[in-house]
């Protein structure tokens, strides 16, 4: 066989296989009209190449048949190219399309009748077999028609580019294919080329070019090569070729060694062929996957790993680090800068870059046109596209220069719903190759961005909740619970140095609220918080400690710093609130207390307690001042405190008297009852070893413990019969009523714990809180005994007075249930020993 003969078999065979392969590949993709048009075109190429090959090989049913297949394929090509472009450009010209189709159908029918090409026959000269044919005068009709159809195709493509629907570069592969086809067709007329299979070669080139064209439009992905159809076609072809080449050897081998099994030869060979085909199918499939899907699988793996990693964390920093690592790995040659939305300012602040040398101090303003454009676009975009947008016109020159300096090429918005939570800007590194990113890579960036967006959203929600839990919503300062964490940290840090704590408490703030309204109160708290934050600056941490209290931690600062800050805050308050404006003069002051480590406190708890005590001291000493806590001897402190409480009680005695007298008007038992209870409880407290200050508190609590009865209906107070459940509920409310009234007595709130707990029981069955045992303040336990005893030995409207002894027995019986057993025994002893004089309405016991 000569070289030419071999070429005439090899080239059409290659072309046939390639077209067949593409044909099967296209069949396995998602089909639409365009893909169908492509399949039809591949079909015509296959007919052309296959017909030509089989005609040469003179396979059955004969050369004439294969000639007809081949020539039909050739005649179909112009119209099918037109049809392909028609679909590719989405043109709407059905009339022209149908008319051309009909004309070509007629031409095909005429061709079947050998109107254009006459007398096709095989000529054998020596070893060479040639196919010869004649041309009729009517041949110019299909030639002109082909030229017209191809020009019409070109016109469609050109018009589509002109109208902006397509880009001329999209048609480049097709132009190359058609160019090769023309070149081959023309060269076939040259005597030197007559003996070469240039026509089928052009089929091969055309098919590949068109496939590339569709691939670029993402209509036929590379992965479709790895589907079963094409892979099986390759395996079958290889198995067939292999079998043909080794058939004789295998046949001889079988005859030599398996002579006995000669009748089974066909079955053995068939099974062997099948096994070989399956084996080759597996190998080819694995190879194709490795070659074509390696990149895609790698990308999928990266995406999967990234998704898994980001789902494991709620930390913004960790997420950004993961994203940075991903970009470093998957975008070599590019520097990425990641900007994250700060929900408070609305700005996009740079939070990371894939290059260590890039400084992270950049930011985009909330109204930056680039950000607005990216948000409206919502997916990956080239910077050049932005420069063409109308948003670009709104950029300042320095903003343009900055982007130019960054050499931004690619922009990636990270969208969470309609909100753009972050933006990644990619710039090409100097040494990176000037190669455009593939569509797959861009798609992958969008996919990763989508995963990141969800994670960022979760992280920001978590961050917001965490911040919400740390901040006071009104002032924006840290709240009490978070401050305690901060203080603990400061204490740990300043363990070998100093730490000062300042507590600021507004004086008579409730009064201020009532005078000027709660809104004004909130306003001044907010302004004061802002001012205090500025005054403290970076020296410490400010928090809102309670409704009217602020607290500041000054690590590594002496108490003077805190005192100085408090004084400045006082001056600010004086300037901004008291002396400000032309309206009525408003009064608002604060008392502040300072404590410091290690001079006066040894722990965080002590710092807080002592600072609180200093505030208390400042309030007791006339308010509107700053007190520094200084440790004093305990007895001196107690004596001082007792004196102050006593003085306070004396100053309030007229108020207390007036209140109890008011009760007397409703329930005259109560007046003397309060006096008696105060007396008994104070005696019991003294006997129990409480200090003078505490005894004074108990005494005052005794005087005030029933003042809440002023709000109890007289009918219930003086009812002689048994109280109904409803009435009992009402009378139980006098405890809360008493505490509510005491809160209005100036600076006597220290009696509240005793008053509030005087109806609690040792076994926890009392009211209002149902606390038990030593949870009940000792003052309240004293009051409980004194109150019960006096109630028993006094005459009431609903009962006669009980004898003292009986009352004591009653107490004795209820020790461990109603009364504190220790105190109860002590009280009984006090009465029985006569140390506690008893006021009783009961007749003396016989």
């Amino acid at each position: 066989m000569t070289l030419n003969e071999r070429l005439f078999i090899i080239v059409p065979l290659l072309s046939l296989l390639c077209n067949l392969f593409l044909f099967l590949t296209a069949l396995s993709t998602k089909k639409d009209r365009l893909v169908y048009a492509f399949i039809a075109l591949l079909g015509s190429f296959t007919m052309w190449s296959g017909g030509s090959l089989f005609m040469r090989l003179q396979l059955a049913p004969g050369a004439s048949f294969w000639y007809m297949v081949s020539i039909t394929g050739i005649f179909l090509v112009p119209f099918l190219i037109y049809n392909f472009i028609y679909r590719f450009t989405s043109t709407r010209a059905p009339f022209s399309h149908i008319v051309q189709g009909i004309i070509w159908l007629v031409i095909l029918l005429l061709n079947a009748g050998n109107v254009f090409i006459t007398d096709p026959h095989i000529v054998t000269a020596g070893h060479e077999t040639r196919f010869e044919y004649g041309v009729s005068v009517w041949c110019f009709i299909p030639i002109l028609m082909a030229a017209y159809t191809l020009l019409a195709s070109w016109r469609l493509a050109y018009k589509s580019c002109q109208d902006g629907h397509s880009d001329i570069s999209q048609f480049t592969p097709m132009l190359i294919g058609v160019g090769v086809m023309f070149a081959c067709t023309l060269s076939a007329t040259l005597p030197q080329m007559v003996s070469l299979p240039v026509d089928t070669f052009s089929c091969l080139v055309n098919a590949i070019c068109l496939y590339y064209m569709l691939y670029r439009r993402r209509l036929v992905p590379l992965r479709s090569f790895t589907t079963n159809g094409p892979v099986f076609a390759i395996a079958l072809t290889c198995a067939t070729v292999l079998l043909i080449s080794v058939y004789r050897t295998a046949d001889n081998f079988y005859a030599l060694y398996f002579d006995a099994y000669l009748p089974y030869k066909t079955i053995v060979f068939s099974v062997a062929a099948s096994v070989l085909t399956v084996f080759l199918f597996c190998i080819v499939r694995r190879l194709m996957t490795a070659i074509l899907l390696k990149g895609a699988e790698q990308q999928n793996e990266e995406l999967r790993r990234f998704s898994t990693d980001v789902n494991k964390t709620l930390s913004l920093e960790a997420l950004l680090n993961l994203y940075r690592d991903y970009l470093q790995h998957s975008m070599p040659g590019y520097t990425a800068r990641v900007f994250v939305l700060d929900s408070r300012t609305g700005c996009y602040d740079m939070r990371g870059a894939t290059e260590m040398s890039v400084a992270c101090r950049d930011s985009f303003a909330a109204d930056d046109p680039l950000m607005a454009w990216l948000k409206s676009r919502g997916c990956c975009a080239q910077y050049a596209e932005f420069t063409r947008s109308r948003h670009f016109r709104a950029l300042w020159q320095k903003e343009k220069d900055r982007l130019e300096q960054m050499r931004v090429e690619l922009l990636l918005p990270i969208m969470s719903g309609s909100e753009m939570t972050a933006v990644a800007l990619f710039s090409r590194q100097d040494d990176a190759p000037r190669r455009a990113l593939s569509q797959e890579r861009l798609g992958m960036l969008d996919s990763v961005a989508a995963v990141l967006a969800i994670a960022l959203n979760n992280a920001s929600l978590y961050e917001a909740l965490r911040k919400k839990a740390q901040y006071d919503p009104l002032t924006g300062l840290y709240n009490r619970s978070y401050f305690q964490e901060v203080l603990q940290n400061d204490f740990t840090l300043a363990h070998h140095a100093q730490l000062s704590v300042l507590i600021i408490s507004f004086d008579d703030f409730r009064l201020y609220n009532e005078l000027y309204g709660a809104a004004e109160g909130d306003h001044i708290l907010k302004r004061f918080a802002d001012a205090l934050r500025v005054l403290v600056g970076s020296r410490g941490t400010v928090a809102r400690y309670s409704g009217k209290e602020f607290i500041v931690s000054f690590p590594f600062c002496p108490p003077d710093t805190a005192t100085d800050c408090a004084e400045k805050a006082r001056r600010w308050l004086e300037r901004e609130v008291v002396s400000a404006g032309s309206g009525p003069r408003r009064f608002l002051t604060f008392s502040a207390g300072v404590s410091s480590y290690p001079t006066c406190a040894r722990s965080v708890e002590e710092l807080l307690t002592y600072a609180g005590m200093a505030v208390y001291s400042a309030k007791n000493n006339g308010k509107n001042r700053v007190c520094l806590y200084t440790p004093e001897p305990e007895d001196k402190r107690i004596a001082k405190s007792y004196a102050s409480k006593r003085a306070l009680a004396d100053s309030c005695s007229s108020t207390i008297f007036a209140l109890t007298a008011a009760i007397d008007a409703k329930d005259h038992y109560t007046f003397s009852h309060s006096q008696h209870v105060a007396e008994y409880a104070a005696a019991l407290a003294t006997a129990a070893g409480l200090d003078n200050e505490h005894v004074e508190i108990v005494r005052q609590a005794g005087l005030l413990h029933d003042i809440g009865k002023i709000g109890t209906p007289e009918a219930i107070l003086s009812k002689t019969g048994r109280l109904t459940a409803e009435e009992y509920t009402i009378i139980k409310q006098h405890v809360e009523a008493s505490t509510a009234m005491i809160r209005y007595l100036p600076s006597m709130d220290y009696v509240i714990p005793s008053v509030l707990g005087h109806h609690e029981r040792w076994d926890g069955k009392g009211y209002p809180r149902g606390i038990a045992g030593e949870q009940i303040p000792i003052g309240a336990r004293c009051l409980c005994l004194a109150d019960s005893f006096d109630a028993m030995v006094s005459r009431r409207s609903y009962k006669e007075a009980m004898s003292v002894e009986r009352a004591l027995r009653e107490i004795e019986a209820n020790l461990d249930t109603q009364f504190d057993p220790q105190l109860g025994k002590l009280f009984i002893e006090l009465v029985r020993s006569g140390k506690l004089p008893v006021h009783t309405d009961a007749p003396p016991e016989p």
Partner: protein
Amino acid sequence: MTFEEKLKQCPAAEVWQEYCGFLDLSLPEYMQIQKRLVMEQVELMAACPLGQRLFRNGVPRNVEEFRTMVPLTKFDDYADVLLPQREEMLPAKPVVWLHTTWEGGDFPSKRAPYTESMLEAYTRNILAAMILSTSKGRGQFHVRPGARVLYSLAPMPYATGMFPDLIRPQLRLRFMPSVREARKMSFGQQTRLGYKLAVKHGMNLFFGMSSVLYGATRSLDSLAGGGGGGLKMLWGISPRMLVRLLSALYRCRRDGTPLRPRDLFKLDGFVCVGTDTALYKNELAEAWGIRPLELAGGTEPSCMGTETWSKNGLVLFPDACFYEFIPEHEYARELEDPAYTPRTYLMDELVAGQKYELVITVLKGGAFLRYRVGDIYRCLRLRNPEDGLDLPQFEYVDRIPSVIDIAGFTRITKREIEKVISLSRLPIAHWFAVKEYDADGHSYLDLYVELDNEDAGSAALTKQILQEHLSIYFRSYDGDYKDLKRLLGMDPLRVTVLRTGTIEAYTRRTGRTVLPVGAPREVVLDILHLQDTLGEGGDVQ
């Protein structure tokens, strides 16, 4: 990537979007761009001595403060910086200085610095105008590299002279005559040679001043070297143009009609600039077979507005200047009371049909802040649903009443007329001047004069003598005025002699003084009626 590369490599939709995408802006989006860019200008100005001088009330922090704190300005406020070209005083380094003559002002010319950013915007906007001139609808345009352009605009250092320099690096166009040749010629020579070349080789685009275009259209034969040119004209003519010319001449002879430009040329785009464009537009469209696209601009504001594909109203570019508008009643009040400061309004506060004086702040490092250009525009409509525009459209009306603009060539003011009268030493006691239009649509200056009592009866001082005398002095005093006669062949001055005492009588009767320049039409009519009722001594009969 140059404009030409974009035309070749990018889809047409992308090119349209880049250059004409501003037409898709909504009014709020437009205002957002304006307000953003004016704050850039404020920042630049605050850092330069000129800006600090204008920001004497403090640096504005937002647009509202800018409009209240910065006074309205005129060229006088910048003259000491711009005329000596003191670059160190400016907000950004200029790369080119443009000039314009201003004989009527306090200074002989005006100068405006252009920064690199301004030129960038200027280029984009002029290319947008070129695209729009060839467009027949949104996104449909036909600009081709290598197109032949007849360029009939004032040369450098006038603002229109920048067009070729800006376009050439972006798009390969064949200017007729070439830019290098044109620079060696006078404006008149350039126009005549351009026409000759156009007739020989054809043309695709035409940039020209409306008044010059109009004049050229009416005398195409003479400009094209026709008339007796005959065979000489045919020498070197391209076969395509020869066929067109011969067939056009045949048709004209057959129908007995004059040769019109539309018979010879098939223009892709037709751009015109200058005052009085509105007057000529219909006739130009009829003559050329394509409606001209009008541009708005000037030395100070650069190219600031263009019409769209429907050629029916100007849209102002959002990134050329920040625009404010003084309504008619406000500037009229200022004319009566010069101490009054008129209020300005923004683009989103306009009323359709209302006339406004334009106030601009040149963006991107320009020198002018809240500058009164002296142009009056009418807001035609606030949006144009037919064209799918959500932006106001304007038409150029005229210069402000105190300036008489003749055919876009010269701007005559009270100061100039006073100067000419004093130079002429004619015994003119009172005068006032108004702008009028003749039957051909040409504008002219109508000067109403009253002679001194003792000369009023002199037969020697006829209207004709006065006119010739004043014309001579106008021509010698104002170079642009001289060009009017030379280029357009028109005499822009007419003198009307009033009976002595008429103006005083009018003032006595109505209590209103007659504005020396730009008196309303009804005042002129009242004066003419009053003149008929006056006796010899100026008494009312």
